[in-house]
């Protein structure tokens, strides 16, 4: 491609809307952090007072320290385990590796809120497994509310992220280099440590940065598990700030958000850099051939046991907890499971309008919202598709920014957008510069109200979700579009088709299966999402995710369990459909 892409009208519109959706909320966070009061109060002034207040708060320091401990612990636990798991599953005759693969993905698609809740009801002080352990041993040998335990749990549930990147690197690694090591006398373990893992070092360092980044963003797990003993990380500290001063302390939250973003933006840029250099490294790989799996021999049982233990702790324990808790009325020491089985919680859920609305909204936002999201991402991806110019470069970096803003913050920023923009327009139409418009009064009466009402529709949540997941979704879709061979597009051009006709007639139709696959993935991600909707939660915008966060605070365990169960059900259905149609659930 040598010809620069032309600036067509449609491209300008797509780029402008995308930039607006990304930068407007971000601008709010930045501006708000430098105000002394929430933006809607009249006596605000510019300054660093919000930062001063936050930096003086000892809780903030604890949260910062624990946040880094958690992120570091995540790397230390998840990367080695993920690497080992990746090697065992993609290269060896580990027992049951075929059905372990889809299971590994479960913690990726089940909301951390649900997982955290699952740990509480399964292994908390009076959880199922704890009471059983108590009956057997006379005491409970663990305390999941201590910081080390939280770090271990977070580490184990984040193993799949490390696994996904390392296993895809291993799969594209030629088997001949491993066979060469075997033929000169290396055992499977020696092959792993001397050849396979050193050769996927770029993937290992990428996974480490990714895990550290995910560690800084942990919210749901910490909210649930950290609360009883008062452990905080930056995101939960920010959430607790909501009502610290009685009135919404937006300026303080924005200051914390700025601190968090100051750490995450460099990490996101570093990830991008590592991903690029990993691509370059791929050229010095061996030949990919069909290879026999490595026989583990006497290590087979031990390796199988380690993997089974991980599966048990990271998947079986929390999910079994949720499922059991959803079908009992209450639970405690001395309660027999058979006596308390019931579906009463589900009756309660189906009787309450808000909860039913949350379920319906969750399905709508996944199915219909997911489709609209894929359409929007496709439009953005086409605006960048095989057009290596400055506009593409600008978009390329811009879409990474929402990635650095944790969902909780993004939701907050969108709340501000929906509150402030109608307010500002209203004032401006009344006596500001927009009042010179001829129809100013009519606009005030007829346009501002619908704009305000947008906030209490599911549209606001959908927009926030779509922006938060833009980097992820765009990578899915641009990969799909790049699989259409350039000659096919060039042939259409030389046959006389305009660029827009080529996109409509060649590129998108050829990429349709990939686009449908992306739709399924967006469905799964939107079902899992919980933090983005927290601040946008009002009557009309309920989703299962945000309802879980708000119900958890009220202590309605039965309903939380039932909703969690429904959430897991939706995810399992989505994953089942995806696996049935051979959608690649990861790259």
């Amino acid at each position, binding site marked *: 491609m040598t010809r620069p892409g032309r600036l067509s009208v449609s491209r300008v519109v797509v780029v402008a809307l995308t930039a607006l959706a990304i930068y407007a909320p971000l601008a709010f966070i930045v501006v708000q952090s430098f105000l002394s009061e929430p933006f809607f109060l009249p006596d605000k002034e510019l300054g660093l007072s919000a930062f001063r207040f936050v930096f003086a708060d000892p809780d903030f320091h604890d949260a910062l320290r624990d946040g880094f401990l958690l992120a570091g612990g995540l790397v230390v636990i998840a990367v080695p385990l993920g690497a080992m798991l990746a090697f065992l599953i993609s290269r060896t005759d580990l027992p049951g590796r075929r059905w372990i693969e889809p299971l590994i993905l479960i913690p990726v698609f089940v909301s951390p809120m649900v997982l955290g809740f699952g740990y509480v009801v399964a292994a908390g002080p009076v959880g199922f497994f704890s009471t059983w352990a108590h009956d057997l041993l006379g005491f409970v040998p663990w305390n999941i509310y201590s910081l080390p335990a939280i770090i271990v749990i977070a580490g184990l549930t984040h193993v799949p992220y490390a696994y996904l990147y390392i296993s895809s690197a291993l799969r594209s690694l*030629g088997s001949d280099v491993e066979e*060469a090591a*075997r033929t*000169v*006398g290396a055992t499977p373990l020696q092959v792993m440590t001397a050849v396979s893992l050193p050769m996927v070092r770029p993937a290992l360092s990428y996974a480490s940065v990714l895990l550290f980044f995910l560690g800084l963003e942990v919210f749901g797990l910490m909210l649930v598990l950290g609360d009883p003993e008062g452990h905080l990380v930056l995101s939960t500290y920010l959430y607790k700030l909501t009502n610290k001063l009685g009135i919404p302390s937006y300026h303080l939250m924005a200051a914390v958000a700025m601190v968090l973003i100051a750490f995450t933006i460099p990490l996101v840029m570093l990830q991008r850099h590592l991903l690029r250099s990993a691509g370059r490294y791929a050229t010095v*790989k061996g030949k990919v051939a069909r290879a026999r799996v490595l026989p583990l021999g006497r290590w087979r049982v031990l390796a199988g046991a380690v993997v089974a233990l991980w599966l048990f702790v990271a998947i079986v324990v929390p999910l079994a907890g949720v499922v059991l808790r959803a079908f009992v009325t209450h639970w405690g020491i001395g309660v027999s499971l058979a006596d308390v089985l019931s579906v009463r919680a589900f009756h309660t859920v189906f009787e309450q309008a808000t909860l039913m609305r949350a379920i319906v909204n969750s399905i709508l936002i996944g199915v219909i919202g997911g489709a609209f999201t894929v359409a929007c991402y496709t439009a953005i991806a086409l605006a960048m598709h095989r057009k290596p110019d400055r506009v593409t470069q600008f978009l390329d970096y811009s879409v990474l920014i929402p990635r650095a803003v944790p969902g909780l913050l993004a939701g907050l920023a969108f709340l501000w957008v929906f509150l402030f923009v109608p307010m500002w327009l209203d004032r401006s139409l009344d006596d500001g510069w927009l009042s010179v418009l001829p129809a100013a009064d009519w606009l005030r009466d007829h346009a501002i109200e619908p704009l305000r009402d947008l906030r209490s529709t599911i549209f606001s949540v959908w927009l926030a979700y779509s922006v938060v997941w833009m980097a992820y979704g765009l990578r899915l879709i641009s990969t799909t579009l790049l699989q259409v061979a350039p000659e096919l597009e060039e042939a259409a051009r030389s046959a006389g088709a305009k660029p827009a006709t080529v996109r409509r007639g060649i590129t998108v139709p050829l990429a349709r299966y990939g686009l449908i696959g992306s739709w399924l993935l967006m469905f799964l991600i939107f079902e899992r999402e919980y933090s983005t909707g927290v601040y946008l939660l009002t009557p009309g915008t309920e989703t299962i995710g945000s309802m879980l966060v708000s119900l958890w605070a009220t202590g309605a365990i039965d309903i939380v369990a039932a909703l969690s169960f429904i959430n897991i059900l939706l995810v399992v259905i989505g994953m089942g459909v995806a696996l049935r149609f051979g959608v690649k659930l990861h790259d």
Partner: protein
Amino acid sequence: MIELAVEDLYLSYGANPVLNGVSLQLQRGEVVSLLGASGSGKTTLLRAVAGLELPSRGRITMGERVLFDGATRTEMPVEQRDLGIVFQSYALWPHKTVEENIGYPLKLRKVGAHERRERVQRILGQLGMGGLGKRYPGELSGGQQQRVAIGRALVYNPPVLLLDEPLSNLDAKLREEARAFLRELILRLGLSAILVTHDQAEAMAISDRILLLNEGRIEQQGTPQQMYASPATRYCAEFLGSNNRIEGRISAIDGSDAALQAAGCSIRGVANGALQEGQPAVAIVRVERIRLRSTPAPNSVSLPVSASMYLGDKWEYVFRQPGGAEADGFALRAYGSEAQVPQPCYLELPRESVWIFPA
């Protein structure tokens, strides 16, 4: 003394059989080539010997050691077989230097650092790459990478060296040099080796014995001279060398001789296989065996020349019967030293160089 023996080996990928009862024996100090078209099973056989593929039946032994026995379901792990393998792609570890690549097998065998360094240097010297030990594989040329791969396979003195298409990744010029280098090295070090190749010139140049594989079976085996000069089957005759093929019917049989009646000519040749009068048959004549004469000679045909091609060291001519369609017309190829063929031109097919096989 037999170094390595393969007995009646069977292997299939799913329902697709690849090896159908292959046997071979490798004597100490001997180099055997496995030659065959792609899909003939030659690489699979090598990988089965190495332990990288699992046969379904048969037996592989190395001296007293049983590497694989289908009857007792015993299989020795790859790393315990102590064979040296040179991979087609070389499979050098890109994150290790040349010295580390060659030294790694010694490290696995718990050889001390000092001795390891000495042995690596000795091998590098033998390979003529003394100064390149600190380089990474990515910084070497194709030929140098190949030498490192050979060094890595030789450094622990394995009794048998397995080479999988060792020259196929080199460009044509380099390939001839590497071929000579490999033959000299094998002779100098007295190696026993099995070499897989699809290139007959490579097989004939390097090995003491050739096994021609066809569809998972051994078609014929023997010294390069035997294989080239007296093929036992039509497949072998056609696989080796550059050939003319004449189709027709047997018109007469006289002891070991047969006469073939083809379109417009009659040729005598050596009968191979069970032939009967009137049966369709095919005659194979190596291109270089045809002689051009200006006077009629026994067993000759007269055809007009239709193309002459200059090959550098010689000329190649195509003779074609006039009138016949290009595709199915009777045509012969021959070599000569002049741009022009003699006029008139008779192509002599020496009787002993015409092999007649059943069609």
